[in-house]
């Protein structure tokens, strides 16, 4: 029986439980009570919950546990004695046997794997059968238990609501689990990386060339400083030189000068800039902007201008970031009390004087927080740099030269065909951890500034 059939069966049993309990509750002797604690439907829900949830929980646990049981069973088979002792190779052969067992007409390259295919199939069938039987039994047991409790005085509603509340709590815990999962998985793989490569080499080394890793001293070619510089140069300098003036001036114009109808139309149009997928920006940068920048560089006299310059990627990234800066600036300017603005205007200051001497200084914390968030966004941006920036790790101040970023290197490191345990692959996780920590810090600082600022005007 496959998983879907089992789920349908369990759901069907739940439905039957619901109907039975409801029918039984409908026949309750009211015993003169004006109203009963729970409605028939609530008794039904109680029984359905007991029928479905334990069975589903079991299926979830079983599907996590049973592959291990299958593996143990297969290893007991005489042919398994020929398997290599080394875990990695053994698992590869077992995986091959599994593939042969599950696919029609598949054949194994390795004779041992071929021999193990039949035992694998048997073990899988056995455990699947056991799991199915146990799940159905559990469903029946749950239904029977719940049905015996259904009587007029039983507070089914409270029970069902407690169950619902538990469900809500579990759902909200997933956010924490995700954060924890991100942090732990990055940390775990990074620790494995730092066992092979000293952390100081990684954080302070200035030479990055993962293509040629010296097995004796992998740290020598895995110094990430050029990546950090490239990320900062493209995301925090070039992109911000575009995004801050454009974003800030757009916000000022739209909030202070534009007619309401202009604002109504232009604000969504600017926000569309943030809605365009980054892969489209990346393609645009590589196809149109990068050649234009190279031509510009050549006309300025750089004969060896790169067609993967830092400038091209940074410019396009800056445009993408404009709406972030402008909407944060918009919010913080709008939060400045009107009285301040009126006070300045009433003294005879022009609008621009009011904006630059009163509104902007007052809104500055909000604007700064917006810029921090925008930087965090820019340095985490991947597709534009993957498509338009170079893979060559340079420390340079010349925007026409190529520079690479952390995100670009993560993609490059993980999309090659390499083993999961090599320092090259693990380096991607160490880079990911660095990126995660930096964006997290930027974000926490920005949110704190915004909160302080809001409190100041409330």
């Amino acid at each position, binding site marked *: 029986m496959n998983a879907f059939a089992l789920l349908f069966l369990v759901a069907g049993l739940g439905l039957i439980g619901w109907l039975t309990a409801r029918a039984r509750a409908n026949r309750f002797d009211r015993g003169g009570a004006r109203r009963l604690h729970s409605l028939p439907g609530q008794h039904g829900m109680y029984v359905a919950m007991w029928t479905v949830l334990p069975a589903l929980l079991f299926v979830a646990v079983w599907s996590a546990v049973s*592959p291990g049981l299958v593996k143990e069973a297969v290893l007991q088979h005489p042919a398994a004695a020929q398997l290599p002792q080394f875990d990695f190779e053994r*698992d590869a052969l077992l995986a091959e046997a599994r593939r042969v067992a599950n696919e029609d007409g598949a054949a194994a390259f390795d004779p041992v794997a071929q021999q193990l295919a039949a035992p694998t199939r048997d073990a899988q069938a056995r455990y699947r059968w056991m799991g199915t039987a146990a799940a159905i039994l559990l469903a029946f047991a749950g239904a029977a238990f719940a049905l015996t409790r259904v009587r007029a005085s039983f507070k089914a*509603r409270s029970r069902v*609501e407690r169950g619902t*509340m538990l469900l*809500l709590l579990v759902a*909200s*815990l997933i*956010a*924490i689990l*995700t*954060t924890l*999962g991100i942090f732990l*998985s*990055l940390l775990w*793989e990074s620790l494995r990386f730092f066992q092979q490569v000293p952390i100081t080499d990684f954080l302070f080394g200035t030479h990055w060339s993962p293509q040629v890793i010296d097995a004796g001293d992998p740290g020598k070619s895995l110094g990430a400083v050029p990546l950090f510089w490239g990320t900062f140069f493209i995301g925090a300098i070039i992109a911000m030189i575009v995004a801050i003036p*454009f*974003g800030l*001036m*757009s916000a*000022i114009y739209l909030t202070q*000068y*534009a007619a309401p109808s202009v604002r109504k139309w*232009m604000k*969504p149009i600017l926000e*569309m800039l943030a*809605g*365009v*997928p*980054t*892969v*489209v920006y*990346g393609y*645009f940068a590589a196809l149109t902007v990068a050649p234009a920048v190279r031509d510009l560089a050549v006309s300025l006299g750089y004969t060896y201008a790169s067609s993967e310059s830092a400038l091209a990627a940074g410019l396009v990234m800056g445009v993408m970031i404009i709406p972030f800066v402008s909407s944060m600036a918009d919010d913080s300017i709008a939060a400045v009390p009107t009285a301040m603005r009126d006070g300045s205007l009433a003294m005879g200051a*022009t*609008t*621009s*004087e009011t*904006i630059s*001497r*009163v509104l902007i200084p*007052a809104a500055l914390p909000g604007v700064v927080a917006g810029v921090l*968030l925008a930087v*965090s*966004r820019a340095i985490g*941006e*991947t597709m534009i740099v*993957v498509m338009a920036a170079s893979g060559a790790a340079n420390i340079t101040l010349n925007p026409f030269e190529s520079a690479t970023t952390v995100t670009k290197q993560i*993609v490059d490191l*993980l*999309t090659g065909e390499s083993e999961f*345990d090599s320092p090259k692959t693990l380096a991607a*996780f160490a880079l*990911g951890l660095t*990126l*995660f920590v930096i*964006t997290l810090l930027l*974000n926490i600082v920005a*949110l704190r500034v915004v909160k302080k*600022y809001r409190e100041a005007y409330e």
Partner: protein
Amino acid sequence: MSKSLLPQLPTGPAEPTERAPTDWTTVAMQKRIRRRYARERRFRFFGLAAVTLSAAFLAFLLITMVANGWRGFTRTDVALPIDFPASGIVVERAQLATRGADLALAGAGLENMVKSAAATAFGPGGEEVLSEHAWLRVRDAIKADPSILDRKITIDLPASTEIDQALGGKGTAAAEAAAAKLQQAGVLSRRFNADFLHESDSTDPVAVGIWGALKGSLLTMAVTFLIAFPVGVLSAIYLEEYAPKNRWTDLIEVSINNLAAVPSIIFGLLGLAVFLGSWSLFGYQFGPLLPRSAALVGGLTLALMIMPVIVIASRNAIKAVPPSIRDAALGIGASPIQVVFHHVLPLAMPGILTGTIIGMARALGETAPLLLIGMRAFIVTPPGGFTDPATVLPVQIFLWSDEVSRGFIEKTSAAIIVLLVFLLAMNGLAIYLRNKFETRW
């Protein structure tokens, strides 16, 4: 108001005891006022310029894509005369009605026959004029109407990428010459390429289609929605309506706010490590249970990514439902669960849906995490289910953009147009929902 946040007002020198009234009519004063007005106009102009340039950039980007992409929806056909009786191709008629028809026609040497027909019609090297897959079209024509095997017909077949590009003015000199010759012969025609919408990836740009990637995207989005929407909405309900205010709920709150700002690529690393990697629980590996590049894994990864977006939007929508509605329901004896599921949730639903659609649009355009979990395979058959190898539209765009052949440029742009149309439709729907159901309390 905290003092540090206020602009510091300049403190001038002490007021002299006697001061002549300001004469605003002096030349110096008038000049000064004119200068201030000039500065005002300049400032205003800069603002307008910033808005205009930003909008112009968007327009330029869209125009570039459309200009490059519209040709991607069309193809060049070559009218090729084929004389079947003279070609010496022998096929058992009875077989054409069976499922073995494809094999029978391939075995009969149809591909070579089409090539030689092209060589006959267009001179030596004439087979270069046709796409490699052109003979498949002849095969389909025979299957549709076997009687054409008895006569001489002229059939429109897709031209090769070289000819197609040469017509667009982007081919090599040799190809342009060949194209010009064909054009003079009047055998070329351009038409809408419906195959682009229902084929999958291919090595030949004239034969590619986006259906495979689109279907992959739809499957992935389905998984994302089925996970992220219920979990996101339920946790928003818990946090907004029931959670006690303590350190645990603060921790959840901080987690969600920060998750929303984590770069998408980090979620790819998470997906790689948790769903596909070497993680194990109680000594049992999960990793190999899920196939790489399946819609299921991609959908799970994106679900984790957009869940915070949905939670935040849902919380705002729930917060906007006035407390008096909750009081009213509680006052006649609705339980806290009934209050939320009968009253608060239905009223918050438009806002929740708007936030969800915006989150889904973000997931639809996302590329980086999916690259990392391996959804970058060359997929020639559309995925049949959630665990089949699949790719998605943005990744397909990325893969095509990496191709050397010039024919892929317009296909990439065409795929971008399709993606943008989908995103525009989703955002349009979100705006429509917001305007239609927006309630002022």
